[in-house]
């Protein structure tokens, strides 16, 4: 039972981590908590569903088109909503994301209806692999693999590409970035695009693990947020680890202590982390000397 709990905790934690990464990417750039993240992912997932359902194209094609849609959605939101804010405060921008979340929720309800659907994922959610006596379902296995690969790509992107470094530079010092000739507004749109892609990937995995319906991201988004807080909201590896830890803690708590309070663990963790170590587990955040 212990092994099973760890494995399924890792799988769900990987999804939390992806969502958390999507949030953290935005948070690092603009200190905005994007509450529309979940719904952006949900709408992207519905787009994938529609493509798969209507045109029966191979899954990878549908996923690529969905990522393209996610990019457009992210840029659209940044340019059409956030950039228009006059004298924006962080709080004001957060409220705009809340508004966008409601618009998307309403849109999804209108366009695709409230019924649950099963998401046609190429990996069975019932069959299992037997790894040394430990049963791991194919979907859990692939969820973990895909998440880890995505995180690794993100890590490489931010660490080694000129654009990735420029994004980090813009996050840390927008004025200096402009002085370097970096188009910071463009970078901001691009940040939203990347975040939206990561969210869409999380959305498709979460729909594949469960079912697809408009409110499907409510719970995962909160858990993702908790993972982000656990990781300090600024460190990408911290966030990834935070997601995994949260998934595992949740499952162990549910398995050995109390199922009824399993969902509360995430919130307890948010409160605990904020009280004890607000910078998160792995963050070595540089505090600007004034």
């Amino acid at each position: 039972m212990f092994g099973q709990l760890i494995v399924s905790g890792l799988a769900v934690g990987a999804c939390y981590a992806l969502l958390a990464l999507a949030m953290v990417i935005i948070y690092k750039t603009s200190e905005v908590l994007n509450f529309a993240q979940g719904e952006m992912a949900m709408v992207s997932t519905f787009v994938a569903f529609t493509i798969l359902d209507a045109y029966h194209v191979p899954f990878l094609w549908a996923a690529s088109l969905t990522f393209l849609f996610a990019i457009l959605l992210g840029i659209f939101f940044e340019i059409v909503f956030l950039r228009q804010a006059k004298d924006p405060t962080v709080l004001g921008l957060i409220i705009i994301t809340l508004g966008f979340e409601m618009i998307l929720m309403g849109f999804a309800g209108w366009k695709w209806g409230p019924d649950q659907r099963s998401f046609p994922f190429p990996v069975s959610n019932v069959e299992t692999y037997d790894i040394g006596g430990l049963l791991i379902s194919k979907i859990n296995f692939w969820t973990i693999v895909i998440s880890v690969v995505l995180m690794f790509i993100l890590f490489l992107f931010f660490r080694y590409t000129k654009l990735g470094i420029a994004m980090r530079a813009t996050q840390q010092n927008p004025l200096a970035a402009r002085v370097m000739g970096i188009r910071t507004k463009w970078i901001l749109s691009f940040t939203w695009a990347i975040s939206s892609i990561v969210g869409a990937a999380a959305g498709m995995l979460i729909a594949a693990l469960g079912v697809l319906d408009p409110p499907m991201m409510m719970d995962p988004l909160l858990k993702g947020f908790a993972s982000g807080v656990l990781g300090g909201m600024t460190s990408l590896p911290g966030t990834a680890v935070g997601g995994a830890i949260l998934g595992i803690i949740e499952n162990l708590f549910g398995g050995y202590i109390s199922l009824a309070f399993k969902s509360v663990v995430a919130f307890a963790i948010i409160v605990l982390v904020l009280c004890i170590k607000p910078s998160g587990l792995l963050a070595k955040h540089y505090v600007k000397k004034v």
Partner: protein
Amino acid sequence: MATDGILKVKNIETLYGLIMAIRGVSLEVQEGQIVCILGANGAGKTTILKTIMGLLEDQPDKGTIEFMGKRIDGKDAEEIVHLGISYVPEGREVFPELSVEENLKMGAYTRKDPKGVKEDYNRVISHFPILAERKSQWAGTLSGGEQQMLAIGRALMARPKLLMLDEPSLGLSPILVHEIFRIIKTINGEGTTILLVEQNAKMALKISDYGFVLENGRIVAANTPKILLEDEDVKEFYLGIRSEESVKGYQRWKRKKRWR
């Protein structure tokens, strides 16, 4: 003064909201020179540099800026960097959570000639050997002097024709100030024109070829360092040398500046 200056600023007026920070400033920088702008806090020195750099939206409100014969007022920072102006902002403004190497890489953001970038990287390292030692350290963990060196090095990575420095001596120990100014002189010697904004008038005038004095958004004096250093007002207000000592020490309040 010759008329083929690399940078020509004519009658610019810059607004911060409703406040006019620059009130009709004209200045010219000759190629290959070091030119300094002196002035007290709030005189508008930084605003001039930011206006030139295109960092203030819709500014200058009036006037023109020409760089190498091209109008650059109204262009955005990205283009201006590309044309060959680099700016070292006041207070260093390094990227604190990027490594020293990454900071330098960002300096060459607009460039597409990897070979040239590599050359410039080596040149920067030769000026500031300490940066090579600290290459993979976060810039935020460097000392103030090292950060200043990094900021200058980063600006050089764009291979600028004109390097604008905003208060490079701010917050540094006298020894480091000397070191920085020595390097500025060396950089200039390698062919980079320099526009320097300073409160430390003595040091600035020592290395400059020409100087402007700015007060309340206006140029009040412009001349060679030699002449400026002899100027009574510059002496008293910027170099801290008083011509007559008063017993009670309130003389500086009584004396009027002639240029007003």
